[in-house]
C-alpha cells in the first residue's frame, strides 16, 4: 500500500517548510520539499544604496544571523574593489567562527536531539548509571549522581504539572527511539545545559559585534568595533571561547558519539551523491588559496577526486517553483518574478528556486565541507574524521548518511573552535605591533558587479550584486537551504533532501519521526507538519498522537 505523508509545519527549524513523502512497504519511495513563505528581499533591495544591502540581507535569517551580513559586505567589497585590512579579516573570521560554534550547538541539542532522545523515557533512568556513563565518556563537570538526580527531579515536576509546554505532543514512546533511559537522561541534562551555554556563546558576537542576533559591526570596507580592540575585551572573548570549547570537547562531541552508538543503522540511511563547498575563513587576501576550509566539488561520492569550482557553472531553475517561466539562469543574471499557484508536487510546489552545479544537485554544509577537506588532506579534518570512525568502528562510507551529516557537523565545530585560537593570537600580535586598522576607505563606483562566496554553518552561500548609478540594480542570494532543500530542477532531478529521504524507514506513517531525522540533519533554515494523504481518495487524514 502506498501512502502520502505531509509534514507541515516542520518545526525545530528556521522558517516555513513542508515535506511530503510517499511511503510504500514501510519506506519512503518519493519525496518533495516545499518552502512556503516568500518575502522578496531581492526585490526590496533594488534601487537602494549598496552599502545598506548587508543590513537587509542579514534579515534573511535570524538563526544564521551573521552570515548574510558577511556575504553581502564581501560581495560589495568585491564590487567596489576594496581590500579589507588584516584585522578586519580576522574579526570577520572570529565572528563567523563564533556563529558556527553557537549554531551547531543549538542545532544538535535544540533542533535535532529530540529526533533521537526520548525526554519522557529519561524519567525512568537510574541516575547512578547515568553518572557512570557520563564519567566514562567525558571529563564534563556537573556529572555526579546528585546532578542527574536534580535534572530528573526537575523534569518529573515539570511533567507532573500537567503543563508540558514545548514538550507537548512529541513522539514520545515511538519504537524508533533506541536510547536506554539512562542515556536519554544524560542527553536531556545536556539539552538544558546547552540552553544556557548557547546564550553564553552568543556573547562572543556581542563583544565584537554589538549584539546577537543581528550583529551590527560590519561595513563595506571592514568592521567598526574600534573601541573594543583592547586587552579587556579580547580577554573576555577568549574566556567565553575557552568555556565554549570545553563544552564542545567534554559535552557535545562525547554526546554525539554516545547517541550515534545506538543508531548505527542510520549510517546507511539518508545519503546523497554530489557535494559542493565554496570554502571559508580566508587566511590572507588570496582566495581561494588561503581558505582554511578549502573550496571544491565532489561528484558521485568520489572523495579522492576533488574538483575545482567554476562559478559560471551555477544556475537556478524555476520549473517547479512559483516564479515565471521554466528556464535556468546564472545567479548574476537571476530574476525573481513571483507567480503563485496552488501547491502541486507534480508541477510547482515551492518558493525556493532549484540551484544546480553543472546541472547536478549538490549537497552543501558540514558534510560537504568535511568530505572535501578530508579529500584534500586537511590535517585537522583528517585527524577528527579518522578518530570518530575508529570510535564508532565505521568505514568512510558511513559518512554518506544522516548520521554522517550530524557527526560531520560536530567534528567541524571542534575544528573551527581550535582554529579560532590562532586567529585571536594573530589579532593580538597585530595590535602589539601598533596595527589597529580595521577599515579601508573606498569610492563607490558609478557601476560595477561583485560576488561574495562564503561557507557558513548550513553550507555554500553566494551573494551577487550589480551596481548602476551607485545604486543596486540587481541583487541575488543563492543560499545553502535552496541547494539542500529546494524542489526538483528543470531536468526533474531531486534536490539533496528529496534524494536523502528515499529509503528512509517509516514505522508509523502517523508519527513520521524517521523523516524528521533526515530532514533535520540538513539543519533546514526555512519550518513544517505531517498529514497523511491516501493517493486514491486524496483524503488528508488528521491523526492524533499518544
Amino acid at each position, binding site marked *: 500500500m502506498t501512502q502520502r505523508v505531509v509534514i507541515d*509545519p516542520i518545526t525545530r527549524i528556521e522558517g516555513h517548510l513542508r515535506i511530503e513523502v510517499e511511503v510504500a512497504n514501510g519506506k519512503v519511495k518519493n519525496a518533495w520539499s516545499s518552502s512556503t513563505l516568500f518575502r522578496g528581499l531581492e526585490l*526590496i533591495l533594488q534601487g537602494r544604496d549598496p552599502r545598506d544591502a548587508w543590513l537587509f540581507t542579514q534579515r534573511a535569517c535570524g*538563526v544564521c544571523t551573521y552570515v548574510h551580513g558577511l556575504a553581502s559586505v564581501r560581495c560589495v567589497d568585491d564590487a567596489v574593489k576594496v581590500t579589507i585590512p588584516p584585522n578586519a579579516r580576522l574579526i570577520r573570521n572570529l565572528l563567523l567562527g563564533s556563529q558556527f560554534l553557537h549554531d551547531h550547538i543549538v542545532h544538535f541539542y535544540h533542533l535535532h536531539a529530540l529526533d533521537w532522545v526520548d525526554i519522557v523515557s529519561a524519567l525512568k533512568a537510574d541516575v547512578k548509571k547515568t553518572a557512570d556513563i557520563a564519567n566514562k565518556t567525558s571529563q564534563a563537570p556537573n556529572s555526579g549522581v546528585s546532578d542527574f538526580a536534580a535534572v530528573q527531579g526537575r523534569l518529573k515536576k515539570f511533567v507532573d504539572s500537567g503543563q508540558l509546554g*514545548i514538550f507537548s505532543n512529541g513522539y514520545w514512546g515511538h519504537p524508533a527511539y533506541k536510547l536506554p533511559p539512562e542515556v536519554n537522561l544524560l542527553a536531556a541534562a545536556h539539552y538544558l545545559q546547552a*540552553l544556557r551555554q548557547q546564550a553564553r556563546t552568543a556573547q562572543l558576537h556581542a*563583544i565584537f*559585534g554589538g549584539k546577537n542576533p543581528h550583529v551590527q559591526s560590519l561595513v563595506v570596507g571592514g568592521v567598526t568595533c574600534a573601541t573594543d580592540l583592547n586587552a579587556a575585551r579580547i580577554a573576555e572573548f577568549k574566556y567565553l571561547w575557552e568555556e565554549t570549547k570545553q563544552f564542545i570537547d567534554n559535552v557535545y562531541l562525547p554526546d554525539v558519539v554516545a547517541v550515534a552508538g545506538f543508531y548505527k543503522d542510520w549510517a546507511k540511511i539518508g545519503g546523497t551523491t554530489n557535494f559542493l563547498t565554496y570554502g571559508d575563513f580566508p587566511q590572507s587576501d588570496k582566495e581561494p588559496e588561503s581558505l582554511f576550509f578549502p573550496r571544491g566539488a565532489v561528484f558521485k561520492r568520489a572523495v579522492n577526486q576533488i574538483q575545482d569550482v567554476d562559478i559560471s557553472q551555477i544556475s537556478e531553475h524555476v520549473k517547479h517553483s512559483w516564479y515565471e517561466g521554466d528556464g535556468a539562469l546564472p545567479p548574476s543574471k537571476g530574476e525573481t518574478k513571483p507567480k503563485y499557484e496552488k501547491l502541486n508536487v507534480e508541477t510547482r510546489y515551492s518558493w525556493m528556486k532549484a540551484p544546480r552545479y553543472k546541472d547536478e544537485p549538490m549537497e552543501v554544509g558540514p558534510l560537504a565541507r568535511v568530505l572535501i577537506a578530508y579529500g584534500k588532506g586537511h590535517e585537522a579534518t583528517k585527524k577528527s574524521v579518522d578518530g570518530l570512525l575508529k570510535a564508532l568502528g565505521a568505514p568512510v562510507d558511513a559518512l554518506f548518511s544522516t548520521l554522517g551529516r550530524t557527526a560531520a557537523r560536530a567534528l567541524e565545530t571542534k575544528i573551527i573552535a581550535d582554529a579560532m585560537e590562532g586567529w585571536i593570537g594573530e589579532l593580538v600580535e597585530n595590535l602589539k605591533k601598533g596595527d589597529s586598522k*580595521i*577599515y579601508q576607505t573606498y569610492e563607490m563606483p558609478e557601476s560595477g558587479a561583485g560576488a561574495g562566496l562564503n561557507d557558513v554553518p548550513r553550507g555554500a552561500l553566494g551573494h551577487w550584486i550589480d551596481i548602476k548609478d551607485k545604486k543596486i540594480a540587481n541583487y541575488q542570494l543563492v543560499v545553502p537551504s535552496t541547494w539542500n532543500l529546494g524542489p526538483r530542477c528543470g531536468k526533474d532531478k531531486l534536490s539533496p533532501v528529496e534524494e536523502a529521504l528515499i529509503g528512509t524507514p517509516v514505522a508509523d506513517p502517523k508519527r513520521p519521526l524517521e523523516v524528521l531525522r533526515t530532514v533535520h540533519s540538513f539543519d533546514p533554515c526555512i519550518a513544517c507538519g*505531517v498529514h497523511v494523504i491516501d493517493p486514491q481518495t486524496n483524503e488528508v487524514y488528521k491523526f492524533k498522537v499518544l
Partner: protein
Amino acid sequence: MRTKDFFYEELEEQGVSRRDFLKFCTMVTAAMGLGPSLAPKVAEALVAQNRPPVVWLAFSECTGCAESLLRTSYPWIDQLVLDIISLDYHETIMAAAGTQAEDALAATVKKHEGKFICIVDGAIPMADGGAWGMVGGKPMLEIAKEVCPKALANICIGTCSSFGGVAHAAPNPSGAVSLEEALGDALKTPVVKIPGCPPNPINLVGTVVNFLLFGKLPELDSLKRPLFAYGQTVHDQCPRRSHFENGEFVESFDSDEARQGYCLYNMGCKGPETYNNCPSVRFNDRQSWPVQAGHPCIGCSEPDFWDKMSPFYKSL
C-alpha cells in the same frame, strides 16, 4: 500555593542561588522602571503555581526574535519555559511537528480561551489572499484571525509584527503588514508592541513580569510600546552624548575619532529619532550594543525604519 522557601530550595537544586534569583528580579524590576522595593514582589509573581499559557506565532519573519528570546539570561531560557511560563506553541523549539504541533496550538486556544498570552513574530503577507505565507496549508492571515482575537492579550515581538518590518519595505512584494493592520477591527484584544530588529529579550520578559505582577499590561506610548523600555530616545541615554555636545564627531570608520569613541551622528546614527533602551540595558547579558561596537544606530524599533531611516550611512 507553593511557599517562598520551597521555591528557593527548588531553585538551589537547579543550581540557582537565592542571590542570583533576586539579582534577576532586581534587573527586571529596574528594566521595567519600577522602584527597587518592588523586587520582592516580582520574585513572588514568579512563584505562581500555574504557569500562564503562552503561544508564539511565527509569520513572515526571520526567527531573529525567537533567537533573541533564547538569549535571555535573567532568567535563563530553561527557567522561563520550564518554571515561569508554559510555552505551548513555538515552532522553533517545540518537540512536536506537523499535525501534532497544530493540535497543541488548537488545544491551548480552546482550553485557555481569553486567558493565554499570544506572542506574534513576523508580518502578515496579504498578497493573493495571504497565500504567500502558509503554515500547515493555511494562510498566516487565517491563523492570526483564528488565534489572536481569543487571546487575553497579544504581544507583537519585533518590528515586523509591530509595524510590518523588512518584508513591508518598499515595494513590499508580498503585501506584508503588521498584525493590527492585517486584522483591523477583528482584533478586539489588547496589543503591546515590542519593536526592535530583534528587540532585547529583557523588554519581553519585563512585559510578561508586569502582567504576572500586576495582572495587567504595562503603560504604553502612542505606538503601544511599553514606556519602561521605549520612553526615551537612544540619543538621550547614549554614553557618547557628551561628544555630541562637545562637537566631537567620527567622520570615518578609519580614524582616531572612531578609536576614541566619538559621536556617530555624522556617520548616519539614528539615535536622536529612535526610542529604545539599548544604551541602558544593552544586549547579551549587558555585553554591548551597536553604538558601543562603533556602528551607527539604524533606528530599528521605529515604524518603517527600513524606508524612513535609510540610506543608513547618511546623517539625519
